[in-house]
């Protein structure tokens, strides 16, 4: 395009599309570098960084007069700062308290700590709502309740209100491990075989004892004690 060429709507669209793709790639890379966290599980500083990044990313997309590099530099710097802060918080407990805050015990030994509730500016109704979210409908059944830094409430019930466990009942239970997908849609997943420490031939042998082949298996899961589930592919 020469300098005398007028800028058409098509050019503007292409510019917007290119800028959106560039910003999308950088945002995805940035979020991947920061690591996996759901919005609800974010620490305060992580939430701030996420909000800022989304705002900064929008500026070059809305205003084509802004160099894309300005947005990219700001996003990458925020990602780097977030990582530095998380490393610092990992190494130093004071920094962690400063940037992420501290969990607060709201119910201690079955007693509501009213001063702690005032400190976190939470009403009893808020607390009851959070307890309901944890399937606790009677506050008198709670031994300990801790408000975590991400806003979640962790609850420990009084011993008489806790669920009965296999250990409590002194029962024996079959050994059970983590079920991993070994075959998905007729394809053997080698990573799962490595984790379960079995070979491909062993899997084929197991399947032949069940009168089937791995190509015909839609899903096969197995744990390290060789407990397995097989769902065969439907003929259609």
């Amino acid at each position, binding site marked *: 395009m020469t300098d005398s060429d007028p800028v058409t709507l098509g050019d503007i669209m292409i510019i917007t599309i290119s800028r959106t793709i560039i910003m999308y790639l950088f945002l995805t890379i940035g979020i991947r*570098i920061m690591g996996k966290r759901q919005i609800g599980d974010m620490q305060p500083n992580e939430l701030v960084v996420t909000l800022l990044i989304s705002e900064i990313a929008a500026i070059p997309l809305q205003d084509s007069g802004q*160099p894309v590099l300005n947005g990219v530099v700001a996003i990458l710097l925020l990602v*780097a700062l977030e990582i530095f802060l998380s490393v610092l918080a990992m190494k130093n407990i004071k920094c962690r308290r400063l940037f992420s805050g501290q969990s607060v015990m709201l119910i201690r030994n079955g007693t509501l700590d009213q001063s702690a509730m005032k400190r976190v500016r939470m009403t009893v109704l808020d607390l009851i709502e959070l307890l309901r979210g944890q399937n606790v409908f009677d506050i008198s059944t709670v031994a300990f309740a801790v408000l975590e830094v991400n806003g979640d409430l962790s609850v420990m019930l009084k011993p008489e209100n806790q669920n009965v466990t296999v250990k409590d009942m002194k029962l024996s239970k079959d050994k059970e491990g983590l079920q991993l997908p070994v075959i998905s849609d007729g394809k053997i997943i080698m990573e799962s075989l490595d984790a379960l420490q079995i070979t491909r031939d062993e899997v084929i042998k197991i399947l032949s004892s069940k009168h089937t082949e791995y190509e015909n298996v839609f899903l096969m899961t197995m744990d390290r004690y060789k407990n397995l589930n097989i769902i065969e592919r439907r003929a259609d």
Partner: protein
Amino acid sequence: MKRFYTACVIVLILTVLCITATLVVNSKMDKFEKRIDYIEELDDTNPEESYKTAQKCEEDFHKEESVLALFVNHEKLDELKKRLAKIRAYSKQKDFSYLLSECAETEMIIEDITEDQKFLFHTVF
């Protein structure tokens, strides 16, 4: 710790990028400013030389516009482009009073672009 090293690499890249941006913008703007100064000095003594310098200045800008657009606000670059075109036009018409006032305004835009790259109190806040 892998992420920490990635963050260090990012900061390093950003530092290099920022230094490059400052150096590139400053050097190119310096070049334009010197040419504009020269046109101002020439005034009405050598109209031909004044026109040639203005023309050269505009040509150089067109060559370097794409690099500058990486670091400088595009609206400011468009404004500078417009001013350089006016300088060329006034020097061709030998309209020296307009030429001098256009040169002064162009210098202000150049200074503004250069200042944006500097770490100063008013650019930070």
